[in-house]
């Protein structure tokens, strides 16, 4: 039989791992968004001098429609990456949240007093209190 002290160390450790997992998954999503935002700033900024900013198109192909098409391709490329990551992450984060709730529940259960471990503390205190107030026959049958 596993003793409670082992479990009281084990469950928080599992929760810690799950918390880090959720944090790191979210971190990867945030970092990717940061990267894409940064690229868009670099490539979508006004490009008057041709030296200060990145451009999609050679100067001899400069045309509003061509530039718009290039921007559209750029956005779609990264949307493909972001949406894939978000789909995968959503599944993982949902699973982690479910697992966290399960482990929290188990941890709480271990933390709660039960007949095998605290009759000499809380249970006895209750017993004494109840014994002061009631006739023994009225509560002993619940034990």
């Amino acid at each position, binding site marked *: 039989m*596993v003793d409670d002290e082992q*479990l009281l160390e*084990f469950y928080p450790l*599992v929760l810690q*791992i*799950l918390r880090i*997992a959720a944090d*790191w998954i979210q*971190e*990867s999503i945030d*970092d*990717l968004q940061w*990267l894409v935002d*940064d*690229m868009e*700033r*670099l*490539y979508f900024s006004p490009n008057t001098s*041709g030296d200060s900013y*990145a*451009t*999609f*198109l*050679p100067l001899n192909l400069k045309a509003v429609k061509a530039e718009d098409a*290039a921007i559209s*391709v*750029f956005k*779609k*490329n*990264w949307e*493909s*990456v972001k949406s*894939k*990551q978000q789909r*995968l*992450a959503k*599944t*993982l984060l949902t*699973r*982690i949240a479910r*697992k966290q709730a399960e*482990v929290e529940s*188990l941890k709480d*259960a*271990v933390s*709660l*007093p*039960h*007949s*095998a471990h605290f009759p000499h503390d809380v*249970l006895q205190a*209750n*017993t004494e209190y*109840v014994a002061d*107030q*009631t006739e023994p026959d*009225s*509560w002993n049958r*619940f*034990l």
Partner: protein
Amino acid sequence: MIFCACYRNIGLQGGHDDVISDLVISQLGSRADETRMAPGSIRRNTSPDHFSPGQRPVRRFLAQFEAKWDLNRDLWGSSDDKGSADIGWGGGSTHLALTNSHKEDVLFQYHMRVFTTQSGGLRRAYTGRVSGHLTAPSDVRRDLDIHEIRYSVGLKTTWKFDLPVFTLVTMSNSFSGLEDLGELYDASAWRAVNIRPLIRATGIAAFAFRVRSLLPGWADQWSRLLDQIDRVLSADVSTRLVLYLVPPMVVLLLTTARTAGHHAPAGEPQENYGR
């Protein structure tokens, strides 16, 4: 558009850090610095002053791959390095443009970290990373060794050439998650994930393709971790559930009995129960 890419897949066991670093620096460093490099010279002297302006950004990339991440990590390093007269730093950004002598190049980097439980796939452990051992309470055979691994992608690309020249470096300290990466030269692999080359920004598109191709392995590592945690937890959850559902009922019944003794016939709790 004709799209060509040269590539090499290199796997090195631990103990070859100098070689790996030199390879990465030669690929992502500024071209003007190539002639200054001697094999192994960079890792033997890691002081910031030792790095040429064209190498310092690569050192930052390597640091993000190797070292511990701070809470407020700065991808491009300390303010001391940012003060370099030769480098235009993208403050708070993921890219760094070499604006003076090497202004044709821009560098980007992206990193993901993940826990793996596959110790057999771990090729190099770094001191700045999280790792640990989860002891299963009921069965040592279910114990878990957990290691942090990283996937790092660095891109150096021109942004003024009509036909771009770019270098893409993908690093990981584990083979796990790298099994099914698509090849950059395979146009059908690009089409399959809805990524298209984009004239001057084709290097950026290749970067997107590579990050996209890492995602299934990244998710798979997390999924395996959760599977393993499930396995550890399932050891004796059923017996614990039976055991620990009982105590709250005992407390509840005691409280009911106490109330009953005061205000009502035994076994009939009143509305102010529990106060």
